[in-house]
């Protein structure tokens, strides 16, 4: 039996030219080779996972390492005797509706600049920007009683001072910061302004809220349009449309639409929404419309696939007890297809959230120093803001860019987590 050449065994134990002796040496070798192949494949897969985790870890490490600094700010103390500087203005003057106008007439900017001049002399221009006084105005608006006091206010320092506090920069600013620090006149803290403000020229004073709010509004417009239209299109194509050439043509077109480069959707939006329909330029409404066009095919394709995977027996069961086609769809098919549709929606929305190119085409790259107040206000979105900041000459924008990326990632993860939570809730009903 062990000898494949033996004519006796070739009659009985062989089906091909090789021995079928399962314990023979040749067979053991083949088994060993199979084990080796299995092991090799396992390690290949493992190494692929390790490499991708390393990339991810590297990305997060660099982003968080750079960006975390963007969330802190440096402030420098300025003593101001409001009582004498304003000539005895009372807190009641700057209360109520006319507070802002009253403040303007008090020449706060002049008072603050004089106080800075007195305290820091020649260094003043290196420590503060010409906008630093607005901190005082804001402080006075929220706490009018300050107007009668002789107090010390903390003003946001120039970006160069802020960077001197965090990492290496010019020797001049390093020395200046060291001097301030030793005198106890500089402090660092969480940069609330970054989370509440909008774009600006001084990196120490910019905020992300404007772009974040723009992104939220744009995404809501996108979702409100792309989800119902996409799902209804998928339902119609799967459940109602007759299978003919027109349906085939529509199906091919939708598949192609999902693969069209996003900038082309931007051009489409520019022509259709801005030129023909004359919707407001740079607005979240137009941005949402353009991104909805881009997201819809993704939802249609995912929706059709998950509707297709609902077992036909469920449809038959419902039809069998006398459910109408619409009842079959809304009572049985859609609830079962929803998890799959949600997955498609998550993918489409995540892509839309990170989209820059089409939004540049419709003017969402405007320099905006206040957050949008509504659908038609000029606004920008997070990825465009990141793109704009990464292009800035001022070195202070580097950490702001990274900080904005962190905000974008957190937004993305929050959105996905919410969608996955919803999906799992529906899935348990199966």
């Amino acid at each position, binding site marked *: 039996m062990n000898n494949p050449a033996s004519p006796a065994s070739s009659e009985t134990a062989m089906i091909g030219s090789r021995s079928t002796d399962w314990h023979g040496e040749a067979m053991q070798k083949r088994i060993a080779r199979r084990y080796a192949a299995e092991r090799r494949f396992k390690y290949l897969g493992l190494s692929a996972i390790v490499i991708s985790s390393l990339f991810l870890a590297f990305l997060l490490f660099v982003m968080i390492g750079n960006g975390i600094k963007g969330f802190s700010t440096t402030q420098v103390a300025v003593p101001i005797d409001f009582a004498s500087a304003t000539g005895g203005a009372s807190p009641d003057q700057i209360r109520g509706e006319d507070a802002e106008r009253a403040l303007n007439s008090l020449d706060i900017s002049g008072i603050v600049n004089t106080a800075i001049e007195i305290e820091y002399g020649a260094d003043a221009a290196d420590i503060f920007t010409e906008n630093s006084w607005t901190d005082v105005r804001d402080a006075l608006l929220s706490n009018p009683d300050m107007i009668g006091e002789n107090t010390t206010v903390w003003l946001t320092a120039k970006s160069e001072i802020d960077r001197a506090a965090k990492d290496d920069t010019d020797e001049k600013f390093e020395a200046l910061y060291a001097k301030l620090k030793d005198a106890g006149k500089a402090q660092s803290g969480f940069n609330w302004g970054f989370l509440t403000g909008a774009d600006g020229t001084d990196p120490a004073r910019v905020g992300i809220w404007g772009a974040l709010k723009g992104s939220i509004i744009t995404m809501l417009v996108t979702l409100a349009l792309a989800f119902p239209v996409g799902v209804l299109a998928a339902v119609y194509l799967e459940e109602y449309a*007759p*299978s003919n050439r027109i349906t085939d043509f529509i199906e091919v077109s939708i598949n192609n639409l999902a693969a069209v480069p996003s900038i082309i959707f931007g051009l489409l939006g520019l022509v259709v929404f801005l030129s023909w329909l004359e919707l407001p330029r740079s607005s979240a409404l137009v941005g949402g419309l353009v991104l909805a066009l881009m997201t819809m095919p993704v939802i249609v394709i995912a929706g059709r696939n998950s509707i297709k995977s609902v*077992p036909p*027996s*469920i*449809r*038959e*069961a*419902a*039809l*069998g*007890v*006398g*459910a*109408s086609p619409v*009842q079959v769809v809304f*009572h*049985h098919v859609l609830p*079962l297809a929803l998890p799959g549709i949600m997955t498609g929606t998550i993918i489409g929305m995540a892509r839309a959230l990170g989209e820059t190119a089409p939004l540049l085409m419709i003017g969402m790259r405007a320099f905006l120093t206040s957050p949008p107040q509504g659908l038609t206000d000029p606004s920008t979105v997070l990825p465009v803001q990141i793109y704009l900041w990464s292009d800035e000459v001022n070195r202070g924008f580097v950490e702001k860019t990274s900080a904005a990326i962190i905000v974008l990632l957190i937004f993305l993860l929050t959105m996905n987590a919410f969608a996955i939570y919803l999906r799992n809730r529906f899935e348990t*009903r*199966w």
Partner: protein
Amino acid sequence: MNTETTNIASSNKMTTRNVDVFYGEKQAINGVSIDIDMENVTAFIGPSGCGKSTFLRTMNRMNDTIPSCRVTGEITLDGEDIYAPSMDVVQLRARVGMVFQKPNPFPKSIYDNIAYGPRIHGLASGKDELDQIVEKSLQRAGLWNEVKDRLNESGTALSGGQQQRLCIARAIAVDPEVILMDEPCSALDPIATAKIEELIHELRGKYAIVIVTHNMQQAARVSQRTAFFHLGTMVEYGDTSEMFTNPQEERTRDYITGRYG
């Protein structure tokens, strides 16, 4: 024999006359005429692919979902042509219920499975009445005692035989006049099959029942009337006892004696 035929005709629930069914160009059913009455269980037997399931599905227009399918001839329910434009398909399917080959409960609770039909047709005036319908349907399907304490559990968690009885209960819940069963036991073990057959006995007389089966013993056990289908035509239709002891046609005899099929 002659008197009996007229007797049956008087209580006909459904009749079909010269029914042809086409799938595109291909003819699947050729000139079938048959009467279904309330008192008897009618069995359709025949080898695989002979068209008995296709024919069954024309009787509540379930074949409407297949675009290429075309039906000619006349099928009536209480004398009403079910393929007439004035016939409401949704109502027809409530009146002519169906139980499928594979148990197909909705992925919902046992209660909701039964309550679904009455709900969409507005058959219950309130929660209490709906509860009653659910209980009565489950009792008629012989499932009440097994599931009464777990009505909120998923219908898909039941065993195969229980699922099929749940499907029968679901069909009963909309108070149909005819129940069509398409090989209801082919996916079940012998014990579950016996329970379904017992159930069919109990339901006889309350509903006109048509059952498709390729198990001849089953046809002999549960039915009073049997139709034998072969290659898209109905070869013979008569009393089950007559058919199995003294078939009129050569092909029927060959099939029943196990010569083919």
